[in-house]
């Protein structure tokens, strides 16, 4: 097969001095699905942004269909037929699907006005042509993530993309949605599209890609045939050592109840119950997993427990203390830790230093404060300890958090939350978008803490993660408990899927002791 595009000797230095790509060679054949792999911060997104004209390299050349091209802006790239679906959605939330679709290539009527009807029609046409169904008149902020992903792909297709770059498209998708996406990608490949696919999930890579390129520390570790390379080899090339994702775990020895909810409900502004009559308990030294398709109330449940939202009905007890009317601070004082779902929104102050981010939960603790001023030295030494213990890759505690890669930012959050000697950890998607090395690290830590007697409530969209880490398991559907398994190791994946999709619901008596009254 011919090479449709090639990048030669690409070097990129960000203004802050970070060398994101160094002398990278990269090429793609027409009609293949080509994976790019690498740890967080390896330079994958940067390389793709260069290919899409969003960043300019310091050195290097790009060839498209054999011709040397200079991509000054996304506009140029689009005109050549390169389309990109970004790691973070590039959508305008308040606009409709159709408006987002045609942004930049707006159809006009009477030569000045925007032709909305035409935009809707264009959207419908392209969505039918590629068999990706979407409602053109829906407002984007109302869409589920899966739909947003589809919209992003359609946007690229509408602009006539022949080469589609997908930067971690599956990170936020449910297994079902991922499956559907893969079908669509294969379909597109069969129609002659070339696809560049970034993912951290080895299984997915193995499943759909033809070849793969591995980046490590901004350098290319070569191009490989997917079939010809083992998972072990891939992770060795990526991280420089073998990675075991299977966490060794002894059976749990649960103790007293740490958290208990009784008839917990939360109604949104429209009065709809988003969390409905949930009663459950988690014990000391136990990891309880919560499985479920995203948007079934898991997020609200976590916010209710951690005090960011107040329940409409019902009670929550942590260590026997009713916490329904307590502030976030007071709940944290009961030794509750929280790994938030979206680290950039809640987990860190991106423009703050690593040190500042590591102390946000204990900055006012008497231990670190005099009468008026803080004990700066002890705060700094605490931060430095955490950076070392959690292997945060950085220059030191004064470095800004937004200069770290995603995985290292997550480590900052985890270090802060795990180090406060918690009795309860509420971990919401703790390894989302994190490379294998860091994932392994965080999972190990969770089990360690459990062994030390912490109760863990683990919410994850990654079924493997839930099944592997949980001692007991709960499935949420429509804000309610659809199933509860006292022993998570006995659960069958297919059966779990049935509960998650609401095809099946357990009766109260099946759930046994941990839930209900």
């Amino acid at each position, binding site marked *: 097969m011919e090479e449709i595009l090639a990048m030669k000797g690409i070097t990129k230095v960000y203004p802050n001095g970070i060398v994101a790509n160094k002398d990278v060679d990269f090429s793609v054949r027409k009609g293949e699905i080509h994976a790019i792999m690498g740890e967080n911060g390896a330079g994958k997104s940067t390389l793709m942004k260069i290919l899409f004209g969003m960043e300019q390299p310091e050195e290097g050349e790009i060839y498209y269909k054999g011709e040397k091209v200079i991509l000054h802006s996304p506009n140029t790239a689009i005109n050549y037929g390169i389309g990109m679906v*970004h790691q973070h959605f590039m959508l305008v939330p308040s606009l409709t699907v159709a408006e987002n679709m045609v942004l930049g290539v707006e159809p006009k009527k009477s030569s*000045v006005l925007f032709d909305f009807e035409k935009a809707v029609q264009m959207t419908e046409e392209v969505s039918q042509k590629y068999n990706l169904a979407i409602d053109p008149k829906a407002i984007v902020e109302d869409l589920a993530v899966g739909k947003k992903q589809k919209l992003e792909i359609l946007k690229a297709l509408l602009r006539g993309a022949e080469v589609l770059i997908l930067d971690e498209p599956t990170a936020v998708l449910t297994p079902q949605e991922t499956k559907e996406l893969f079908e669509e990608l294969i379909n597109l490949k069969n129609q002659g599209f070339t696809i560049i696919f970034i993912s951290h999930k080895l299984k997915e890579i193995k499943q759909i890609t033809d070849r793969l390129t591995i980046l490590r520390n901004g350098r290319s570790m070569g191009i490989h045939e997917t079939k010809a390379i083992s998972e072990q080899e891939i992770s060795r090339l990526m991280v420089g050592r073998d990675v075991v994702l299977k966490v060794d775990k002894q059976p749990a020895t649960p103790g007293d109840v740490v958290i208990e909810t009784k008839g917990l409900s939360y109604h949104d*502004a429209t009065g709809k119950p988003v969390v409905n009559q949930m009663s459950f308990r988690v014990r000391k030294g136990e990891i309880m997993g919560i499985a479920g398709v995203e948007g079934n109330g898991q997020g609200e449940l976590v916010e209710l427990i951690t005090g960011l939202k107040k329940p409409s009905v019902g009670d929550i007890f942590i260590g026997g203390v009713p916490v329904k009317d307590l502030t976030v601070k007071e709940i944290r004082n009961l030794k509750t830790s929280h790994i938030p779902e979206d680290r950039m929104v809640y987990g860190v102050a991106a423009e703050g230093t690593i040190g500042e981010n590591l102390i946000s939960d204990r900055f006012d603790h008497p231990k670190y404060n005099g009468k008026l001023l803080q004990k700066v030295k002890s705060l700094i030494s605490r931060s430095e300890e955490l950076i070392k213990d959690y292997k945060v890759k950085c220059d030191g505690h004064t470095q800004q958090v937004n200069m770290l890669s995603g995985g290292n930012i997550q480590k900052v959050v985890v270090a802060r939350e795990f180090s406060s000697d918690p009795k309860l950890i509420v971990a919401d998607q703790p390894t989302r978008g994190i490379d294998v090395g860091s994932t392994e690290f965080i999972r190990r830590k969770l089990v360690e803490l459990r062994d030390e007697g912490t109760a863990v409530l683990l919410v994850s969209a990654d079924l493997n993660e839930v099944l592997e880490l949980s001692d007991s398991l709960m499935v949420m559907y429509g804000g309610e408990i659809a199933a509860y398994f006292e022993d998570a190791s006995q659960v069958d994946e297919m059966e779990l899927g049935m509960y998650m999709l609401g095809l099946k619901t357990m009766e109260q008596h099946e759930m046994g002791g941990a839930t209900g009254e």
Partner: protein
Amino acid sequence: MGSLFDIIFSANFGYAVLRVTTPILFASLGALISIKAGVVNISMEGTMLTAALAGVAISAYTGSAFGGLVGAVVVGMLLGLLLAYFALNLKTDIILAAIAINLMASGGTVFGLFVISGDRGISSSLASKVLPRIQIPILHQIPVLGPVFSNHNVLTYVAFISVALVYILLYKTPLGLRIRAVGENAHAADSVGISVKKTQYIALIMSGAFAGFGGAFMSMGYVSWFSTNMIAGRGFIALAAEALGMGRPFGVLLTSLLFGSADALANALQAFRIPSEFVQMVPYVVTIIGLVVYAQRKHSAAQKVRQEDRA
């Protein structure tokens, strides 16, 4: 003298409200466009002032009121361009750049006036022109409506028509779609090949143009001369009106009218021997009350949205 009630429900009062509202409306529409594109233009005050001088000077020089208007608008656009250049190309903090423009305008106009007319206070020695008033044929004869709505300066009508034009621009044209996209998520706009910088340039230039209209109205419609510091805070009031207008052209119309009414009301209250300091406070107090009412509504709406977001 009649009661306050009589004054407020007189045609003169209604007429005054529209006149007082005009410059504020122009400036707040300009502010609206810039804010929609994600670039706050708080140099409306200085831009209006400079445009007011330009209008007078050019109309005196060309002997044409229309020439003066065009000059004022062009000068407004140039100041928008200047702000855009510093903020977008040189990355000067846009608030700071705008404050600097206000500073330059307050001194520069005095200097400019001196160079042009030899005066430093008022341009009365220049035979500058005023923009015409317009009698609206049939409306003019209708009893109450005629005196309120007819016979205004042409720019008053332009201002009110502009509300609809800005609405069409923002919500019915490709450029408007781009402006809103750039303002809401510049990365998204960038990723589909829209030039964020170009769009923001256009928005700032347009906001300068509106300030230019506002300035021209002040010196060629409201009064018939330029005098130093004659904008007297209207550019800042317009920012408040914009902020209160819920980011909508018609919202901005309503809040500008609220200001205009409060101002006219303050004038009417002078007749009642209330301590003058309190009379002067009326427009600002009304604004804060408006802000509270609006915030209360938005607050509950936002809570609703936030809760829905999580759903």
